[in-house]
């Protein structure tokens, strides 16, 4: 069988370092490691840049499905684009391996029988950071929130978790998106006296906010800074001086065990010295699982392959063992990381210490709460 | 009020940030006359002219046209009342032919041309009238030439033809002879005299011989105020006018 995988992500914008060319490499490595050719599966991979614009992304997806016989689209960071691809994939009855996007709507009200949401989602991030922080004593929160739907959702979800865990939300301030200067909002956060300042934003906004928080001495002042959506590459960009002490939730860290280290070393060689982000890891694992299902079914019919993927437990070197739920949610452990101090770090990419591990059954939103029409 | 007056300005004043360019001017233009406005540089002639045509809003004072207060009206609406101005720099539509230039004015008679759904062919019935107007000012042979390609004097003639197409009751001309060669001056003078038969004309002009030969009445402005008024013979003998404007050397 010939299988064509389209890696659709941001190759020029804010997520290009987290899920750009690296995701394509990850998909290629999955095909190679699976030894697909030996098993009679001809894998070809195409890629494109959706520029974080849903219209561009949906256009490419449609064209891939309609004219280029793409069977499966992988990655797709940026929720808005992912939601669009999700719709089109359902309409065209193909498969979408969503490793990049954050929106938990993909397994909630927008869930689709053709989509697997692999790596993480906003609920998991909010839950990981919110509950674990409260458990560690960070029981009063102030949010610096990007003023758009994604920021609002992160803030709302995290507030709920914080309050459910017995913490208190003291206030929130909405900053324009995208923002350059966060000083004024950070000052308000500082003035609130909250123990935890939650950054409910993403990408460049988070990077700038963290940088300026260090400038204004937020963490030195005794407040903890929690980034609700952040990747290892962002920490790399910021440098440990600035990022130290920051708390964040993730699904993958390259330095977790021998298998992850081995993969990451190979990956780093091919990706200009960059360690894999959790999204790239997710692309690798999801493509691997997909290929296994194709092999098992002996056909690439979307419905059959999806059924197989959900039926078959997942097992890969990066995420270990896991399952895919009926709503398309992939379940695995999540981790709460704290960024190391410069003197704790042994060198580049040695950035995280694991503060808490959240077991797979606690890490994601319960099946019943998502409102996915597929699981009535 | 003078029954023969077509345009009256009372107490007209224009200040530019403290500087009074036109100061309490009273001006009456008689129906059917050619009225000239002269005065030294910076006297406020152009400013007064702009006030009368509503291209500037007066600081104080009132303007009445045909007995109607037009002080607060918009320039385009003034034109609709039959009070039309020309410009000091030649005012044609450069990329349109001479005929099209005139036709734009004739088109005004259709009322507002907001009919974007209609073909411009409806305008071709105005062509013959346009041609007649061009003939009047001696431009027949130029009717298909782009206005920008016309010699200067012809542009002025075209401008006058365009203005006449509106069939205005009153024309305001700003230095119609400025920068014109003698032969053009004579042609345009004759044209102005001809069209003044049943119209009123107010003009600003520096060329004293033109003023002398054309105008029935002259108002001399100096430092924003009316210095003298009367016919050429009277005004040109007024010692204040001689001192402020004409100077000892003229004549």
């Amino acid at each position, binding site marked *: 069988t010939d299988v064509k995988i389209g890696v659709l992500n941001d190759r020029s914008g804010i997520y290009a370092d987290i899920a750009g060319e690296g995701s394509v490499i990850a998909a290629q490595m999955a095909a190679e490691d699976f030894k697909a050719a030996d098993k009679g599966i001809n894998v070809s991979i195409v890629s494109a840049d959706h520029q974080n614009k849903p219209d561009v992304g949906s256009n490419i997806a449609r064209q891939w499905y309609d004219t280029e016989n793409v069977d499966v689209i992988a990655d797709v960071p940026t929720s808005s684009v992912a939601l669009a691809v999700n719709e089109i994939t359902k309409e065209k009855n193909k498969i979408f391996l969503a490793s990049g996007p954050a929106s938990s709507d993909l397994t909630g009200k927008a869930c689709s029988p053709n989509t697997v949401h692999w790596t993480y989602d906003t609920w998991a991030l909010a839950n990981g950071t919110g509950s674990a922080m409260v458990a560690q004593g960070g029981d009063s929160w102030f949010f610096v929130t990007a003023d758009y739907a994604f920021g609002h959702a992160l803030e709302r979800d995290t507030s709920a978790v914080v309050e459910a865990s017995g913490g208190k939300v003291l206030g929130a301030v909405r900053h324009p998106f995208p923002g350059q200067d966060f000083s004024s909002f950070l000052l308000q956060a500082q003035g609130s006296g909250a123990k935890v300042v939650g950054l409910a934003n993403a990408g460049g906004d988070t990077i700038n906010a963290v940088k300026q928080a260090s400038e204004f001495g937020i963490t030195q002042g005794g407040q903890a800074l929690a980034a609700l959506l952040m990747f290892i590459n962002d920490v790399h960009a910021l440098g440990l001086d600035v990022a130290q002490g920051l708390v964040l939730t993730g699904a993958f860290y390259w330095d977790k065990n021998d298998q992850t280290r081995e993969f990451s070393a190979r990956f780093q060689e091919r990706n200009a010295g960059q360690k894999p982000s959790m999204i790239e890891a997710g692309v690798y694992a999801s493509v691997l699982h997909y290929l296994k299902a194709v092999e098992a079914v002996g056909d690439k019919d979307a419905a059959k392959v999806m059924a197989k993927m959900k039926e078959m437990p997942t097992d890969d070197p990066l995420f270990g063992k896991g399952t895919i739920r009926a709503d398309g949610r992939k379940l695995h452990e999540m981790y709460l990381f704290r960024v190391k101090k410069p003197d704790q770090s042994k060198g580049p990419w040695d950035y995280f210490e694991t503060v808490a591990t959240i077991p797979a059954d606690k890490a994601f939103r319960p099946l019943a709460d998502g409102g996915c029409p597929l699981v009535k | 009020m003078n029954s023969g007056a077509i345009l009256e300005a009372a107490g007209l004043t224009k200040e530019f940030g403290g500087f009074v360019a036109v100061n309490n001017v009273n001006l009456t233009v008689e129906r059917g006359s050619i009225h000239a406005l002269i005065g030294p540089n910076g006297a406020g002639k152009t400013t007064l002219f702009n006030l009368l045509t509503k291209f500037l809003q007066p600081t104080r004072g009132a303007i009445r046209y045909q007995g109607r207060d037009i002080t607060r009206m918009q320039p385009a609406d003034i034109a609709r009342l039959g009070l039309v101005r020309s410009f000091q720099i030649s005012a044609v539509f450069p990329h349109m032919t001479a005929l099209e230039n005139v036709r734009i004015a004739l088109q005004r008679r259709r009322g507002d041309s907001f009919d974007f759904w*209609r073909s411009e062919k409806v305008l071709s019935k105005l062509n013959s009238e346009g041609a007649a107007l061009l003939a009047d000012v001696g431009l027949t042979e130029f009717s298909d030439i782009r206005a920008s390609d016309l010699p200067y004097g012809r542009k002025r003639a075209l401008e006058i033809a365009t203005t006449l197409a509106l069939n205005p009751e009153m024309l305001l001309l700003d230095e119609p002879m400025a920068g014109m060669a003698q032969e053009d001056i004579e042609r345009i003078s004759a044209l102005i005299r001809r069209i003044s038969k049943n119209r009123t004309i107010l003009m600003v002009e520096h060329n004293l011989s033109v003023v002398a030969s054309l105008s029935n009445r002259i108002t001399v402005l100096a430092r924003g105020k009316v210095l003298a008024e009367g016919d050429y013979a009277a005004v040109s003998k007024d010692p204040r006018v001689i001192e402020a404007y004409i100077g000892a050397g003229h004549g």
Partner: protein
Amino acid sequence: MTTDTNPIAMAAITSVGAAGMPRHHFAIFAALFVFLIAAPFLLYPIFVMKVLCFALFACAFNLLLGYGGLLSFGHAAYFGMASYVSAHAAKVWGLTPELAIIAGTLVAAVLGLAIGSLAIRRHGIYFAMVTLAFAQMIYFFSLQAAFTGGEDGIQAVPRGHLFGLIDLRSSEVLYFFVLAIFFAGILLIYRIIHSPFGQVLKAIRENEPRAISLGYRVNRYKLAVFVLSATLAGVAGATKAIVFQLASLTDVYWTMSGEVVLMTLLGGMGTVFGPIVGAAVIVTMQNYLATFGDWVTIGQGIIFVVAVLLFREGIIGVLAKWIRKPL
């Protein structure tokens, strides 16, 4: 915005064909029509529809810039807002596609009237800046208003049944609907340009004070052409929402305003057919070079620079100069 050769001015001295249209224009329209009828069988129909939507948008913009002499730097506002409204109408109110498009168009027209009546009081670069400022406000409104879905946009818009009857889910059927809208749009623009109204516009563009002194209330004409342009941009945006089943922030962002300028400039502003060509080139480039990431941006930049330096008349403008006929 006066270029040395004003193609419109040449119109007066060109032979006129049966439909009141110069013969070669008629021929081009006919060829375009034939080509577009055949296009979906040769090319990917969705791609062609995208080109048509943007071409209509660019033509609408060109009506304002090339024929009204007004450079708006905020045309994304009408395009994008119409797209949101039509998406919302189709998805939430369940309107049929043609009604959804009409709803979007009406909103664009009203928006054009509101913004236009303020903006036309300013000239030149200030006009551009005021339109940009209002467009930015519309952008922030779209980012925050609940109905637009923030950065997710309005997704999964149903294509619905035309007049409640014809199922538009098939791209081929939808194509002919879009083609009809496109042709109606550009023919209307053509007629506007060559109407008595168009003549007055031209006069205003060439010498505004003179037009005023002839008794034309120029601001009303400018406003009229502004609203017409915004409305037609709205038609394009609303149609795009139905075609792509999506309305998103991209369509209201200022880069979209920049893109439509690029299309118009590249094709040739003040020409009838230029914006169509410009839109086709840009959309094709975006579509087929998407894999190359940043090189697309760089390529667009280079096109801008080259177009400005070497052929300011645009592709069609240069062509028109060669054949010495307005296009």
